């Protein structure tokens, strides 16, 4: 088997295990940073609560993204992997469910709230920013991570972009309807927005030189840069705060408290940090940030 140095370097950078296989891409299949969480075996909940219902049903339905490296990305087998997925595993474990008992459903940006309202999923863990408008129709546990909007540019930063103010007159790519796009539209109206439906298309456009910058939450950009480190780079100066929460049905305060407790516990016992190191942290190569403060509103 011959692996060019470039592929090898990239593969090593993401922590892939290189073993004998016949195509460069084949090795991706072995890139499974398995992270098992100890399942609570004697979990009991008061009858009538959501926790009891889920534990009895033996299945936790989780809405997640499958196209965001580091947080929620379907691997070659189609199974989602990432920090969001690890959060779901931690919650499932507290409910007495193993990770095989989690049913993942892709949530497209346009339908995250209806997903919860229609009871199609129990929780949404999908790089879901907590904001007041959303709080009117769903409730949030967490935050379990605080991201920030950042900018990705071509390698070497030919345009010399260091912050959002430099975007004036530049073509900037983002996703239609997303919070970062909305932020640029309102606060930096001189930037020319190019809006796709997924970020991978933005990365393509930046590689092709069709746009001069891509903007969204730093963690999403980091995942994109990881794939093409010799073509793309991150400016690395977040200019907003995006607290990621776990969405659940409005008014289910018991369930919200339960998830908040679970999250706090995971902050303390190190499983949160472990989850970070094996997913998003493996991409950035940076240690886990300080744990966020749970907002029990």
């Amino acid at each position, binding site marked *: 088997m011959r692996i060019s140095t470039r592929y090898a370097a990239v593969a090593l950078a993401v922590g892939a295990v290189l073993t004998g296989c016949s195509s460069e891409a084949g090795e991706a299949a072995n890139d499974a940073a398995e992270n098992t969480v100890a399942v609570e075996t004697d979990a009991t909940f008061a009858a009538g609560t959501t926790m009891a219902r889920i534990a009895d049903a033996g299945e936790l339905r989780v809405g997640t993204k499958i196209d965001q490296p580091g947080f929620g990305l*379907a691997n070659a087998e189609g199974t989602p992997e990432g920090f969001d997925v690890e959060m779901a595993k931690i919650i499932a474990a507290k409910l007495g469910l193993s990770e095989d008992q989690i049913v993942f459903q892709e949530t497209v940006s346009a339908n995250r709230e209806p997903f919860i309202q229609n009871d199609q999923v129990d929780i949404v863990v999908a790089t879901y920013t907590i904001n007041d408008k959303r709080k009117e129709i769903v409730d949030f546990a967490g935050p379990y991570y605080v991201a920030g909007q950042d900018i990705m540019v071509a390698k070497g930063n030919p345009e010399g972009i260091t912050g959002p103010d430099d975007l004036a007159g530049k073509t900037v790519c983002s996703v239609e309807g997303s919070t970062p796009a909305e932020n640029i539209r309102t606060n930096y109206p001189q930037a020319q927005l190019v809006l796709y439906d997924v970020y991978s298309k933005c990365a393509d456009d930046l590689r092709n030189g069709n746009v001069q910058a891509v903007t969204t939450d730093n963690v999403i950009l980091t995942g994109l840069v990881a794939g093409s480190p010799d073509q793309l780079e991150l400016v690395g100066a977040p200019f907003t705060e995006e607290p990621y929460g776990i969405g659940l049905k409005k008014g289910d305060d018991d369930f919200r408290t339960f998830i908040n407790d679970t999250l706090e516990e995971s902050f303390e016992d190190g499983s949160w940090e472990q989850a970070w190191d094996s997913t998003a942290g493996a991409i950035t190569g940076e240690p886990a940030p300080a744990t966020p403060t749970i907002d029990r509103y």
Partner: protein
Amino acid sequence: MNGARVLFDVPGPRARRRQRIGSILGALLVLGLVALALWRLGSNQQLDPNRWSILFDPASNVPQRLLAALVDTLQVAAVGMVASVVLGALLAVGRLSDHWWLRVPVTVVIEFFRAVPLLVLILFCFLYLPKVGISTSPFGALALGLTLYNMSVLAEIFRAGINSVDRGQAEAAYGLGMRKWQVMSFILVPQAVRRMLPVLVAQLVVLLKDSSLGFIIGYMELLRTARSLVEYFNSLYGDTYTFQLYVGAALMYILVNVLLSQLAKLVERRTAQNVKTTGTAPLDVPGGVPALTGQVTGTV
């Protein structure tokens, strides 16, 4: 006007030579363009066998995923096809009803679902039916959206087909003492379906392709799976495999759709040979009965 051969003479020796030269020049031009495209692809390293091997290497799990996704695509399309053909036939009969209280609502249903973009229809089925107590999985919502849209298109195709059946057929059936529903179900609809077969299949091909709109509600059909694989490999190798994966998915669609069309041609030839149906073979339709040609292509 079949074959359209009346439009030109059988070419003589000079015309044949001219045509041959023209054909060769044209072929050279096309080949030149293809070669140019291949050369540019090659110089951008897109023809590197290592890049294409991902489509066939089981270790990458790509062939397994794409085939499984093809099965998912075919499943949802099959449900949509059967349901929309059956409902489409019923709606066509309803629209031809003598009773206004049946005809009017059926017409409204057909016109409405034909006019709404399928993307919006699928999204609506997924997000709003649960609000009125009908729980839908992505599979169910996609199948339902495809059915609602295609049944209304097919209803119009069938209606045109029924209208194109020679009036004598219905008259003879009434003469034999058949009731209206008998005339419809035993005489008109079977002939209409046979006659509209090419159009019907063209529409089923559209249905199959439209199943790719399932991405909007997270149904992992062929195209969405290809994109998901692209996104995964993007996170490891940049855009190394992007082009190859999309070409692979596109070829799978073309292959399945061409097979479907060929199957239809086969069925058509077989029914055309059947003595019982010779009277209804499309070739014998008197010079473009407007109602028939009126719908011959289905929609896009």
